[in-house]
């Protein structure tokens, strides 16, 4: 059996975390979702992940740009300066009328830029984006799970 994907989500709004979970579930993405409630937690986790090779490798970071304590830009910078996660794909999520621009996200090599969904079809789209990103990773031992083989799970 393939190992589930390890996905980090830095998002302070539980309603939005639940939406992402819905999106992953809708696309049958087998994964473990690690939720980080603020920028400080996110930076601390990135540091410990980078130092401790025994911890599971993270496949994707889903990042809300407006986080308490440290914003998304700080986290992107830290991520890109790590030894092991500099190439990890990132999906940036922003609120609808955010001043955070796609250009700015691209500057930090965020792979995808996504406006937080306000309707079901947008939610579905977010799931599709995540699935495609993970498929691109396609690293040894990790395959996109077959249909119905798993659900989006999570732990903190």
């Amino acid at each position, binding site marked *: 059996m393939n190992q589930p994907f390890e996905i980090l989500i830095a998002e302070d709004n539980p309603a939005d975390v639940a939406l992402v979970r*819905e999106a992953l579930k809708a696309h049958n993405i087998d994964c473990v979702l690690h939720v980080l409630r603020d920028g400080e937690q996110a930076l601390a986790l990135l540091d410990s992940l980078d130092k401790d090779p025994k911890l599971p490798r993270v496949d994707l970071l889903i990042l809300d740009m407006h986080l308490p304590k440290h914003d998304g830009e700080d986290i992107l910078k830290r991520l890109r300066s790590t030894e092991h996660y500099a190439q990890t794909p990132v999906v940036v999520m922003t609120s609808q009328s955010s001043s955070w621009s796609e250009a700015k996200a691209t500057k930090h090599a965020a792979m995808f830029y996504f406006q937080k969904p306000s309707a079901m079809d947008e939610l579905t789209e977010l799931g599709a984006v995540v699935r495609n990103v993970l498929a691109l990773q396609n690293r040894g031992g990790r395959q996109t799970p077959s249909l119905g083989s798993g659900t989006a799970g999570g732990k903190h």
Partner: protein
Amino acid sequence: MTAQGLRASVHVGHGSNRVDHELLDALPVAVYITDSEGCLTYFNPAAIKLSGRTPQLGVDQWCVTWKIFLADGTLLPHDQCPMAIALKGGEVLEGIECLAERPDGSRFWFTPYPAVLRDEDGRITAGINLLVDITDRKLAQRIAAREARLLSAIVDSSDDAIVSKDLNGTITSWNKSAERLFGYTAEEIVGKPVTLLIPLDRQDEEPQIIARLRAGERVDHFETLRRRKDGTLLDISLTISPVRDETGQIVGASKIARDITDQKRAEGEIRRANQGLEQFAFSASHDLQEPLRSVKIYSELLTRRYGGKLDGEALEFLGYLQAGATRMELLVSDLLAYTQVSKRVAGSEIADANVTLTTVLEGMSNSISESGARVTSDPLPTVPMHGTHLQQLFQNLIGNAIKYHSPERTPAIHVSAHRQGRGWTFAVTDNGIGIAPEYKETVFGLFKRLHTSDEYSGTGIGLAICQRIVEQYNGRIWVESEPGRGSTFRFTIPQSSDAGG
């Protein structure tokens, strides 16, 4: 008739030592003749009228008048009057001003022109005097002097600096408030160029002002900065009027400078307060979007996932929840648009209204075709405004025209523009339901709606946005309407140079 002329006529009669009395009788000027002793031998009717008495020939001496005073008010004895002095062989005084009193107590000013007649040996044989009434002139002078004193008192006590200058820009007068305001005394600055008061970066204002004055124009409430003696700057409002001489020629300017430092400070405070409020409204409407998004998507999720398990009433409630969220979303986004109007500063942008209208109509093609509306337009001008602003104006006005169409007619909307002074007036005319006269003003208020949302959807922000945009360009928006027949919304966009005042 001058004294010189009179003397000539006297000389004409010299041979017979007689004067043509008939001629003198007809003169409108008081004339009398004396013998060498000063006794009156003749006076004309004008002399009776002027002096207010009929002298007695051979008795009255030196003058026809009752009492004479000098200009300083001291009584002048008759034997010291200019005629008496001349007859006694003294200096012939001409052109002095005297005051005389009539027996009835009334007074008059006159100038005597005495002359003496001499025989072949040079002896004085007679005297003739002509009294010119100068009362009217003296009165006019006195009134003018009083007015001048009054004016100078007003100028001196004015809180505003009042300064005059000639057309070379040289200061010619300087009141007390000018001393207080600018720090220069009148002695220091009169005769100096007015440019002394103008900050270096505004020196070009003076030639412009002079050019306008030369053209006979007034400069009204021109707000600018001027420099005090100590170098500090002062916010002032200038009103400058050309000064003309008696012939109407412009010879200079009078300038009233009002200190508007306090006013400017108050304006700044109001502006900052407004900006703060605007920022607040912006942040509030911006931040409201996020929780709203959750409400919207979760009610959708709930309907999709659990719709089948809910009973009719629960579904109805859920419908209200979704309708409320949708409506709030519209309100919030309109409010956001409203607060963002002033974020686009009116600058050097220009918009081709034809292009803007085409863009707007393309964007509205769905609602236009759904309503079957026919939208027509005249050739439109290019105007000095931000394209987005003109777009919002057309969008809201045409959108309203479609929304409030009459169920009895195919909606017909026409967009036109015509020259208004140096700017333009746009008109959006429809054949819709119209607006009752009592609502013509209120429709432009924020959140003002004339219908329930069941009848016509909307947030009541659209026209408020329009008004805010137009006012940003110092324009005006209003509606003309015949209820049941249609409405015409008009807005003006002045020339950009008008905006600065």
